[in-house]
């Protein structure tokens, strides 16, 4: 794994060829100690049968940052997210979310996170307000605060006016914002977004990201996201990790990662550099489940 320090481009230490494990820079470690990291994964491993989906992943995400987990289909991003959100129990390694062990206290970890899955998961047969209220109830928001929190979540996502409408009448961008409102109703410290803008048109994508950026800026919330859109990662992420074949190949700010490949390098170049740049037939890259899931989402978005 290549770890790039949070310093000027001149200090970048990206490597090519055989991945080398590197400890986080001292400055970053000191900052993490002072504030405490939002997420710390160590030796995280998960296998499906004989296929190793996530292979000894070490990851540290600082509080308040927007962190992007990038990689081709089948790289292990979603499996990593599923372990972080307690949906899967790691076969090896540890996860700490805001200082809480995910394997020892999964219920507490769930209280700390807001999760927006890749698929459009709002209930289309309920109204927008009912969808948010459902999550307020499931997160045990006290009845005395529930209405205020539901309305605040809807207002933060600009959905107050259509909140009484059945969700099947919403546009794709509105559904995504509604899902963010659901995730926000418990005021999570860590917001986990699995390809939040997949299938959205450029205007809706920008709209969703503007809302996420505003929330993060004003709530000091940590955001962990996966995306296939390099422009989004470049614009909105403080740091990114490039994942390939179950391993983290490089970590650093988009600017630094680009700088290591040359002045005119783009994040697409960085992506190709660390992930091989070709479709890998030997892994489950772009497997039928991934394609089917993405198409299902796109179809629901119209």
């Amino acid at each position: 794994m290549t770890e790039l320090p949070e310093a000027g481009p001149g200090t970048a230490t990206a490597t090519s060829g055989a991945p080398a494990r590197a400890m986080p820079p001292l400055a970053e470690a000191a900052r993490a100690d002072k504030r405490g990291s939002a997420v710390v994964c160590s030796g995280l491993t998960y296998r499906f049968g004989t296929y190793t989906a996530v292979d000894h992943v070490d990851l540290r995400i600082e509080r308040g940052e927007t962190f992007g987990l990038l990689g081709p289909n089948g790289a292990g991003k979603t499996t990593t997210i599923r372990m972080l959100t307690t949906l899967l129990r790691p076969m090896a390694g540890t996860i700490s979310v805001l200082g809480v062990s995910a394997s020892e206290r999964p219920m507490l970890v769930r209280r700390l996170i807001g999760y927006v899955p890749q698929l459009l998961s709002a209930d289309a047969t309920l109204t927008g307000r009912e969808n948010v209220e459902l999550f307020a109830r499931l997160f045990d928001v006290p009845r005395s605060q529930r209405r205020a929190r539901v309305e605040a979540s809807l207002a933060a996502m600009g959905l107050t006016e259509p909140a009484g409408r059945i969700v099947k009448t919403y546009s794709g961008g509105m559904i995504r914002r509604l899902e963010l409102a659901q995730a926000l109703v418990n005021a999570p410290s860590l917001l986990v977004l699995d390809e939040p803008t997949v299938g959205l048109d450029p205007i809706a994508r920008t709209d969703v990201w503007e809302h996420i950026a505003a929330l993060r800026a004003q709530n000091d919330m940590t955001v962990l996201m996966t995306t296939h859109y390099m422009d989004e990662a470049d614009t909105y992420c403080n740091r990114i990790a490039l994942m390939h074949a179950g391993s983290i190949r490089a970590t650093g700010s988009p600017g630094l990662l680009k700088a290591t490949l040359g002045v005119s390098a783009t994040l697409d170049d960085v992506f190709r550099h660390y992930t091989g740049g070709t479709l890998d037939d030997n892994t489950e890259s772009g497997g039928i489940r991934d394609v089917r899931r993405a198409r299902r989402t796109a179809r629901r978005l119209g």
Partner: protein
Amino acid sequence: MTSAAPGAPPAALAEPALLPVDTPVVVLRRLASRIATLCWVELRKIRHDRTELYTRAIQPALWLLIYGEVFTKIHAIPTPGGIPYLAYLAPGILAQSALFIAIFYGIQIIWERDAGVLTKLMVTPTPRAALITGKAFAAGVRSVVQATAVVILSAILGVALTDNPLKLIGAACVVALGSAFFSCLSMTIAGLALSRDRLMGIGQAITMPLFFSSSALYPEKIMPGWLQAISRCNPLSYQVDALRGLLIGTPAHLGLDLTVLIVATVAGVTASAALLPRLAR
């Protein structure tokens, strides 16, 4: 459609809700809260779209109007105390309509898995067993709403049903309990089958045998010996027995019936909660 520029998040979102420390009382209260929440969702859905209620009422209506009326006239099936066959049949059809609703809850949970809804529910601080119990009782709520339509139809056809409110409430509880079990059975099969197509096939394969091997249509004593043995293992028979006792006053074993239904529901919740992570994988 895009929204207006995002503003500052309101103060109400600044802090997470404070929670009491987990004690057995708090855990039980939370379980009750999850059940209430998922039942609330089911009622909201019924309120928004009643089409299913009307379409699902057709089949029990046909059973009562055609099968019930014909067999009442030909006196082919002996009934306890010589009560009209239609009266004997009505509780059986009530249980059948609840069974048909509940048995396809497994398909719903697979749909929720495919749509990402289940994943998101499983990332809330809701224990798996509470999620399944909530869904099971949500199936019960839907079945009770459906059963009300069958009771009204039976009354219109002249079936002398009890007007004792306590017995009616008891019957509603029995319908809910039976539906909770059959929905758990369906969700357990969903956890094994993992696909809608497979579950549709299995659901259709077991629904009618469950119905015909129960005492819904005919008394157990006229069944062949092997079918009697199956009927005694079939929770639907106990549900029908309890409903007949409560609604039309035939001799029933209410204590045994309720015990079987409760034990079966607890076993169903345990099995489907254990298999739920397979669906999320």
